[in-house]
């Protein structure tokens, strides 16, 4: 029997044991963003015609929280194990590179999706927003969490110190999520910035996710899904290659 289910279980248990910090805290942070930005910007921003700004904001913020937490889960677990040395307990058993990859990835997705559900559970009773195409929303939630869970695996493997991981998070993940149209529609940006935004895979995850709610988006959902899924696939290939080589894990 494979060790994969146990590694997945252990990774889920790991964040669930500290769920106050890993689930409740990001849900609260998202609600605070919602409260402040919706209040401050509601009068000034009209993102999609016929969609109140507060409604527009909820899926974007939920997706941002999902992306960040999927990334945080795999990256922090791997770097903690590397630095404290308990990674040996995963490297010594007969687990293949693919099994290790799949377990960290799925656990990251579980965390991301749990946080997303938490955000909706906390907001929907206050602000009931429509969900026009739930399957699209679900597809983007999976691909978005998968993409960032994989990026987290890469960051965790590459980083040798918490400092390096923090740099990865603050100088790559944060800017890419903030500039992915969480708070605005990219159509409101000047032309050049619109083009730059279209290079950001996080943008497609958020834009497509929003389509699932309002049936409106900046880019056609099929194209967004194709782009986000390609980014996810490319990152997965890289993460798997690193794990197969034992990069910074098996010396």
């Amino acid at each position, binding site marked *: 029997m494979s060790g994969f289910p146990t590694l997945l279980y252990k990774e889920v248990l790991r964040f669930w044991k500290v769920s106050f910090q890993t689930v409740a805290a990001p849900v609260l942070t998202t609600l605070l963003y919602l409260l402040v930005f919706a209040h401050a910007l509601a009068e000034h921003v009209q993102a999609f015609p016929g969609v109140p700004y507060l409604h527009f904001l909820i899926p974007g913020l939920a997706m941002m929280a999902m992306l960040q937490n999927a990334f945080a889960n795999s990256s922090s677990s791997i770097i903690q194990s590397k630095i404290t040395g308990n990674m040996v307990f995963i490297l*010594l058993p*007969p687990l293949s590179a693919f099994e290790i990859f799949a377990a960290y990835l799925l656990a990251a997705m579980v965390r991301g999706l749990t946080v997303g559900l938490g955000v909706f559970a906390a907001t929907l009773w206050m602000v009931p927003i429509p969900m026009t195409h739930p399957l699209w929303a679900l597809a983007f939630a999976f691909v978005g969490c998968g993409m960032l869970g994989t990026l987290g695996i890469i960051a965790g493997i590459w980083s040798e110190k918490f400092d390096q991981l923090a740099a990865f998070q603050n100088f790559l993940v944060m800017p890419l999520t903030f500039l992915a149209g969480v708070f605005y529609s990219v159509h409101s940006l000047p032309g050049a910035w619109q083009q730059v935004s279209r290079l950001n895979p996080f943008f497609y995850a958020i834009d497509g996710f929003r389509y699932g709610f309002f049936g409106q988006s900046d880019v056609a959902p099929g194209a967004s899904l194709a782009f986000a899924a390609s980014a996810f696939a490319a990152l997965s290939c890289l993460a798997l290659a690193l794990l197969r080589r034992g990069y910074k894990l098996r010396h």
Partner: protein
Amino acid sequence: MAAVAVRDVHKRFGAVRALAGVSLEVHEGEFFALLGPNGAGKTTLISALGGLVRADGGSLAVMGHDVTRDFRAARRAVGIVPQEIVFDPFFTVRETLEIQSGYFGLRRNGAWIDQLLERLGLGPKAHANMRSLSGGMKRRVMVAQALVHRPPVIVLDEPTAGVDVELRQALWAFVRSLNAAGHTIVLTTHYLEEAEQLCSRIAMMKEGRVVALDTTARLLAAFSERVLRVKLERGELPAALAAKATHEPSGAWRIPVDDMAQVERALAAMREAGTAVASLEVGEPELEEVFVKIMRQHAA
């Protein structure tokens, strides 16, 4: 079939040559010691055996399974207790062992885990968080983790470093019983008397090479000797004895002897010469002496 087969293994870390062509075999059921000063390459070799380190050249196999080509079978066949104390602070002792079992694909392993907990004196701590354990207790959990899949080959990398007497004795009793039950044991330690008492064969490493490999008995016979140590109260050591004796810093004379008959003859000679003995002791061959001599022989 060899339990462990290492053939011409090389490993470099940047400019450092950690393993420079190591070959050795450990037979099934053996209690084998891997000795050497710090930096000799013992831990690198063990890590290569467990897949934690990738050899640059050569091959390693556990119970006939190559550690890279047939990594799953090789890793199922070996349980390694790492040298550094490491643990996952998120889990209790029992959870740690259940999770480790699961990594090996063993789901219903509760009975063996209970046995391990009991044999290693971890029963009362089964539901304690790993963080709350003392260093010695954490070490016991690491031993249990390495044994959770009942590997035929068990590798202990300095398991008694910084460990109290009680645990050391309990650990050796347990490991001896595993060896008696057919498990092959590979041990590294800096406590040479442990290796001498426990191990039937010894490899000594220095600077990434095996510099001695033989049975403990033959190494002791070849490199060490039985000695008679005498402190004199008055008189001189008879000339015949003084010729082969050396003076130790403690003030005692150290006279090599082959057997007890020679001891008797030496004492008789001293009595005849009117030499009074203040104290005497017969020292058996010691692995420490073997170790020092071999390391000196291979001094660069």
